């Protein structure tokens, strides 16, 4: 163990000592062996180096899980979409037409009027009954010019327009930001509540533990979506407060329970005893020793909370209970209120992009969570 042991003089010739040299794993400047400067490095620079090093190690573990990488790729694509929206609005998209909330465009199309029963191709034909609403004089066989609303996907509107004549692609991109923002708020709030409460309950035990855990049981029993609907009906709930609400509900409930059991397994480790013997206060032991060891698992639950938050937002918006101008949920809500909900095959662009985005982004965060599971729970690691 003592480094670079040399054979005594009795040996005929000194031999290599390669295995005994401590290997410098890239966090020391080359040629700085035994240099006092290595010991006195700038604290921030040092911490950054250490962070980079452990990040690299964890990344290589994470990268082993293909589903984790897939999830990350999905999230990355959505992030790009979110960034793309303001850029497109500032450059190629005209505000009046492409604004996701107040934009309007009704492309004109020539269509042949056909009797209701014979309508086969809605792209080129229009049913007599609907044509009569515009012009009471048309007859089957006439050609009419119709302002399409919702409009089919075209080169101008890649995903068509919604029943109010707004560009669906613009709405979709705009909604990405809302989904991310709310997911992040929910996740951070969850983790703060769950980690702090779980660690405190585990460390102190006794009545504090009892109080926290009974509260958690209560929150665990509350069904998330019905409660959100209930609260949405009583109060004005925006995206920010929805994120907060979901964060608190899951942070106080299931996440606190899971993180407490994790904190409990940390609390009995001898290094906690060692910190006590060193004289560390309760606060120091919780913040320096317990929480850092619970944090990886918290991070995992952060991912799952984002999934819950995005789904929750979509649900609430669908019922029209959210005070939001535009989001993926609102897009589906609009399709529903205008009566297009059950006509998905004809008007796929009203439902599929928003519904698909909710599903995909949720799945992305979930998959990242599964990938993190490999890093956080070494038991699952293959040999």
């Amino acid at each position, binding site marked *: 163990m*003592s480094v670079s042991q040399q054979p005594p003089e009795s040996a005929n010739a000194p031999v290599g000592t390669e295995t005994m040299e401590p290997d410098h794993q890239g966090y*020391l400047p080359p040629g700085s*062996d035994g240099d006092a400067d290595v010991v006195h490095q700038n604290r921030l620079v040092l911490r950054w180096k250490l962070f980079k090093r*452990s990040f690299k190690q964890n990344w290589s573990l994470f990268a082993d899980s293909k589903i984790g990488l897939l999830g990350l790729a999905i999230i990355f694509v959505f992030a790009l979409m979110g960034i793309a929206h303001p850029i497109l609005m500032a450059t190629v998209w005209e505000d009046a037409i492409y604004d996701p909330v107040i934009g309007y465009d009704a492309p004109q199309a020539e269509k042949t009027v056909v009797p209701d029963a014979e309508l086969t191709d809605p792209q080129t034909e229009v049913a007599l009954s609907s044509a009569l609403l515009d012009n009471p004089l048309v007859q089957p066989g006439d050609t009419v010019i119709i302002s399409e609303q919702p409009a089919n996907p075209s080169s101008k509107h890649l995903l068509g327009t919604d029943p109010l004549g707004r560009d669906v692609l613009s709405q979709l991109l705009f909604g990405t930001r809302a989904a991310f923002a709310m997911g992040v708020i929910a996740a951070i709030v969850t983790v703060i509540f769950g980690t702090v409460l779980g660690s405190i309950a585990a460390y102190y035990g006794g009545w504090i533990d009892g109080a926290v855990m009974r509260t958690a049981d209560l929150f665990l029993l509350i069904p998330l979506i019905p409660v959100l609907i209930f609260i949405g009906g009583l109060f004005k709930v925006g995206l920010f407060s929805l994120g907060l609400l979901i964060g608190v509900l899951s942070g106080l409930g299931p996440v606190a329970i899971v993180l407490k059991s994790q904190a409990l397994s940390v609390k009995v480790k*001898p*290094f906690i005893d*060692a910190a006590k*013997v060193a004289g560390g206060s309760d606060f*120091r032991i919780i913040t*320096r020793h317990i929480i850092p060891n619970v944090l990886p698992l918290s991070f995992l639950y952060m991912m799952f909370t984002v999934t819950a938050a995005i789904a929750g937002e979509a649900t609430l918006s669908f019922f029209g209970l959210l005070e939001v101008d535009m989001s993926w949920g609102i897009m589906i809500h609009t399709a529903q209120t205008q009566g297009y909900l059950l006509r998905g095959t004809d008007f796929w662009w009203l439902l599929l992009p928003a519904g698909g985005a909710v599903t995909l982004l949720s799945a992305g965060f979930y998959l990242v969570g599964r990938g993190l599971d490999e890093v956080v729970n070494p038991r699952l690691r293959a040999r």
Partner: protein
Amino acid sequence: MSDDLYTTSTATANKPLIKVEGLKKLFPVDKGLFRRTDEYIHAVDGVDFEIPHGQSLGLVGESGCGKSTTGRMLVRLTEATEGRILLHSDDASDGEEYVDVAHIDRSKQKAFRKRVQMIFQDPYESLNPRRTVFDTISEPMAVQGLASYKEREDAVAELLERVGLSPASAYIYRYPHELSGGQRQRVAIARALIINPKFVVADEPTSMLDVSIRISIMELMLKLGIEFDVSYLYITHDLAVARYMCDRIAVMYLGKIVELAPTEELLSNPQHPYTKALISAVPVPDPKFERPEVEILGSVSKPINPPPLCRFIERCPWAADVCHNNQHPPLEEKSKDHYVACYLV
């Protein structure tokens, strides 16, 4: 080298560093949520010993004998139910020579922590995996508010070299998972010694290490023990290790010290029947050596509300009337420095 151990620092040679008097720990037997228990495990049941300055005492016994609980009480990881732990005071300004650290108030705890430290058994679990070697070793200094950050770095770097992790710059910012078991235990030793404690409780610090690593860690602890003028309470189940490390050995059985004597005296001339059996059961790495056979009866039981008789009575093949008619025998000096708790000696 062995001779160095018997010399104590002259200034305080006559006064023991730590005196333990009637130390007890009872753990209630859990009987469910709403029933108050009147059954207690007498994990440590009236233990007395002294450790002179710079000397080391080995606490030896089988699992469940209360040796670890005793150690944890001395560093106040476990509250003592009864008894006094008197630590020799280093500054006389209090006017008192000894401080009872078993009943110390919170404000004085920090000062106590400066003088008493602990080394743990499992080098893989006793270091926080998320903290670097520097964070871990400097923690007692940081908590005690000693020295600036730069000074702490210097102190840690210097100590790393002294515990054999050299060059210090190659180890100071590593994480525990980048170290081997032996290296981790060296870090744990450095953490215990960084604030110059006078007394260190070492709970089986080498039992999880490989043979070749074990001996170098024991050598290191002996060397630093002299350099830092530290007294060890060395807890182990292994008499051979205790012999290597300790000036005196106390043998524990079911919460009581049954025999306490200088190491070689205890091993060559054991008096208590349990000590005899224990010594005869230790395998010797010499196939030609014929061990004496001392058979004792039965197996270890749990000390739940034990009768006030000798703890060893059920397993003792020599138990006589005097044992059945009296309480647990007191730990008495039968010959010079040789204490035995047995009526038949």
